[in-house]
């Protein structure tokens, strides 16, 4: 459900703000990257700490 959760979070944000998303799904990062490609958002940074993957998106 990362797509749905992100879409819900982004509706409450202003353009230019940065969203930090964290997940533990093996396909989480590729899902976030596909999502940003489709919606035209920039990925500011990505990191992984053990199982937790964190991606920063500029809306």
């Amino acid at each position, binding site marked *: *459900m990362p*797509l*749905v959760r*992100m*879409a*819900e979070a982004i509706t409450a944000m202003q353009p230019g703000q940065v969203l930090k998303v964290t997940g533990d799904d093996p396909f989480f990062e590729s899902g976030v990257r*596909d*999502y940003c490609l*489709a*919606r035209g958002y920039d990925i500011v940074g990505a990191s992984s700490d053990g199982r937790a993957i964190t991606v920063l998106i500029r809306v």
Partner: protein
Amino acid sequence: MLVSGSLDHALVAFEIAAGMQAMGMQITMWFALLGINSIRKSAGFPLVRRGVPKGELVGGAGRNTGTDTAWQQVLQAANRYHSKRLPLSRLNFLGAGPWLLRKIMRKKGMAELPGLIGSAAALGVRFRVCQTCVDTMACEVSEDLVVDVEVCGVSRYTLDVRDSHYNAVI
């Protein structure tokens, strides 16, 4: 278009619809035949909620109560499935299959069907149901369903399919 009343098919349909809507596509979900079960509320008891006297105009959208028959109540009594209780298309084992699947999905932190339906509706997915199915199964769309729907026919479906980039019949 969801025509199947199975939990596995409904999960796929709603997962795709909610995901694609989140990705920025306008999604319209169609429900026909037993697919309507996936967005039905529990009918509770008694088995048949309302008797519709022949010819009396108590029908909501898409209903032609003049041609109703008692067999529709038999169908309602037999079709006890709703959004929180759907069978699997295979490996149902009298309800043990869906129970096991729910247990696994909960452990994995996945959204279950009622949650997925709520997310899809909140994201702006449109829901449309087949008029002939509503009339056949004596379904009152304003009371019996968990989401707001439009009752439409093949003509609307034709336009929806013609104007879309992707169409799946599940």
